[in-house]
């Protein structure tokens, strides 16, 4: 018996030694990664992850356990999981989801990555342009620094007129010429075209399909200040439409207190009175559904669109018309787009350095990125001779994570619809985008939280109606302005301005 025991002990020790030897390489770890906006079925996930994990085992000895958060459940589920201290290694985060990047960085939920990046993710650090890293720098729990890895995706903002070219041609206009010349919201030609469409298609047709907040930013050439009230922007920063990086002496202003806004609101009200804007667009209850449905049936002449490279092709195919995108402003980069999709390492992660190694590989290794994003060759897609891929639609429908939310999408192979060289033109377009004069500034509104809450209430009461042309600005704007001042808009604006001055000085 004793002999047996000692033999067993010896075996165990030997195993221990072997284990220690393997430690010299990399200990196997499991990482839980929480994605956003996924359409992935359990079966497809299992199939793809088997391959992904086999690949990762050789590379960094990591097993991935993905949590395929969907659009609908992500916000509620992640905030609960974060508050409840779930053992998740990597979370998707950004400045528009409920687990808002800057806020959760401030509250100490993300690991500060600055020092670890050089050690564990040098390729990743090099792959992402400096300007985008700057946007990731936020005033977090452990001081200013990078708390998440930004995705190299459509990292610029450009507001365009979404033109129904088919209808415009029907009305007898030269589509190319109109698009070439550009559109001016305040011009008589713009109004004439809307009137012509209204006359031709009848009373139930509303030629101007707007998303009020986008229209306002687009027409007044103002940008979102990252950190402004979520979903209720009250701050504006005007930039030069042709050269967004040019300093035209702008400061942060109360969005609703400017002449530009008054002019915009008056024009929108005028269009609304002429029957160019559907009443469905003017009610928050119906606006979103109406816009989506009307875009799908192509029953509009001009719409508003925050542009993404190549989207006119997708839209033309989906709507069965000739969709043209006419830029209102040049493309610019700001932190709202820079923080549009990020991956943060959770403080509950037991292996933050391995999590970072995974992010490093995901963002720099085309094989891994393609597997994670597009699935497996022969299962979800086939590769063509020219290097493009063709999706196998049925299978792709079961494995379809949100492409932009994954990371560096520029290392993906182009699809046959995108064509060879798509990603080169994509990178070229976004790399050419100029940075706004305030660079990577992020407003931390926590010091004016009380004012912020009051402002959000006032905003909800008036802003949408004004921006959609539902009410007469001559009557309502002064009243709105008075209420904003009562709620503390001036304190809010000066807090933002003071922070921006400090940021630019430092």
């Amino acid at each position, binding site marked *: 018996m004793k002999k047996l025991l000692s033999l067993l002990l010896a075996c165990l020790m030997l195993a221990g030694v072997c284990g220690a030897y393997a430690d010299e390489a990399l200990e196997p770890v499991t990482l839980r990664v929480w994605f956003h906006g996924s359409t992935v*079925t359990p079966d497809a996930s299992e199939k793809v992850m088997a391959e992904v994990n086999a690949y990762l085992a050789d590379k960094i000895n990591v097993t991935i356990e993905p949590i395929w958060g969907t*659009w609908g459940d992500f916000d509620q589920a992640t905030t609960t999981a974060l508050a409840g201290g779930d053992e998740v290694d990597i979370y998707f985060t950004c400045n528009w989801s409920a687990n808002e990047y800057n806020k959760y960085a401030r509250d100490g939920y993300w690991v500060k990555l600055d020092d670890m990046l050089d050690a564990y993710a040098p390729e990743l650090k090099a792959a992402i342009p400096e300007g985008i890293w700057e946007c990731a720098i936020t005033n977090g729990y452990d001081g200013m620094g990078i708390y998440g890895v930004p995705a190299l995706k459509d990292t610029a903002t450009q507001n365009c007129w979404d033109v129904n070219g088919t209808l415009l041609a029907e009305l007898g206009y030269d589509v190319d010429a109109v698009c070439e010349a550009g559109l001016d919201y305040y011009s008589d030609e713009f109004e004439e075209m809307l009137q012509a469409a209204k006359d031709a298609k009848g009373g139930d047709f509303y030629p101007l399909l707007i998303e009020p907040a986008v229209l306002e930013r687009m027409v007044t050439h103002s940008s979102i200040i990252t950190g402004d009230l979520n979903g209720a922007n009250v701050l504006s920063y005007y930039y030069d439409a042709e050269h967004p990086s040019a300093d035209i002496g702008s400061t942060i202003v109360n969005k609703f207190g400017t002449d530009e806004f008054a002019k915009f609101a008056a024009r929108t009200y005028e269009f609304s009175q002429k029957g160019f804007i559907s009443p469905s667009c003017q009610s928050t209850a119906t606006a979103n559904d109406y*816009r*989506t*449905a009307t875009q799908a049936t192509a029953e509009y002449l001009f719409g508003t669109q925050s542009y993404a490279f190549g989207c006119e092709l997708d839209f033309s195919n989906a709507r069965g018309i000739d969709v043209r995108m006419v830029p209102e402003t040049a493309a610019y980069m700001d932190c709202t787009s820079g923080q549009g999709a990020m991956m943060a390492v959770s403080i509950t992660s037991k292996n933050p350095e391995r999590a970072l190694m995974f992010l490093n590989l995901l963002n720099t290794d085309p094989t891994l990125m393609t597997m994670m994003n597009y699935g497996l060759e022969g299962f979800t897609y086939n590769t063509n001779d020219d290097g493009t891929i063709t999706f196998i639609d049925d299978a792709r429908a079961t494995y379809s994570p949100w492409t932009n939310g994954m990371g560096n999408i520029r290392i993906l192979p182009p699809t046959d619809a995108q064509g060879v060289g798509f990603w080169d033109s994509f990178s070229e377009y976004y790399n050419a985008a100029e940075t706004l004069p305030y660079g990577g500034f992020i407003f931390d509104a926590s010091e004016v939280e009380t004012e912020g809450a009051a402002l959000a209430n006032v905003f909800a009461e008036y802003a949408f109606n004004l921006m959609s042309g539902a009410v007469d600005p001559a009557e309502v704007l002064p009243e709105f302005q008075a209420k904003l001042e009562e709620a503390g808009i001036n304190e809010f604006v000066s807090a933002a301005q003071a922070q921006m001055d400090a940021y630019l000085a430092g």
Partner: protein
Amino acid sequence: MTKKKNLRLNSVSVGAEAVIHVILAAFSLCCIIPFIFVLIISFSSEDSIRAIGYSFTPLAWSTEAFSYAFDKLPQIWRSYFNSIFITVIGTVVSTLMCALYSYVLYRPDFRFRKFFNFFSFFTMIFGGGLVPTYIVCTQLLGLRENYAALIVPLLVNPFNIIIMRAFFKSSVPLELIEAATIDGSGEYNTLFRIVAPIAKPGVATVALLNALAFWNEWYLSLLYIKRNKILQPLQALLMELQNNVQYLNQMAGQMGASAINEAAKMPSQSLRMVLVVLIVVPIACAYPFFQRYIVAGLAVGSVKG
């Protein structure tokens, strides 16, 4: 003679009866029309929905959404099984727990009656809040990524306990239990052979409430089923689809073109209605089943005079 009198006593005038019938018919129509509408939409072709929206008379009919759901989405069947499994197990266990708990609360000779009464009632007024509940469930009780997570949090419902206790009080006289004791019946015998048959309508009511609660549950799945989505019940699946579409519509301003492209991936509207049909049918069948006990129970008494 007496029979005739009774009939007259209970009867109402023809006019009043007509009015009542009309009101009840209108109410029934209000309940059934939305469902018929959903059924029609689920059989409408997607082109028709796009062109004229939801309509009782679609331009073209199609069974495409049904065949898509049955052929292409194995998860629907799994979710169907999950929903039924959770509802059956959950209803049986929770009804049993509720009946036993309220039985002791109803017995005046139970010494800790007050304490246990307060113990359940207290949770109706003060909850732990979402996050503490979540932490207890996931970290202490291990309720995540398993069926238990979808069943255990709903097992005890203080409101049902109150209903059940009130039912015991009103329909099971204490004299009956005393009589049983005098006749030499033990506690278990009294409970299962004497009290239980009388309590059937109450149990059926609570069982129906529980069955509905388990069948309609989707929030627990949202919180506790993340990696193992194979366990998702049908309601959670539908809720997820619905929320996805809503979220993308809302976020179009912030996400720009990406939101529109993603929205295009979402299942068709008729497919969502197919899910609604699949969800409604089984639970609608449960009503007549429970109703039998409830109606039958109302006519049964225990102590005469």
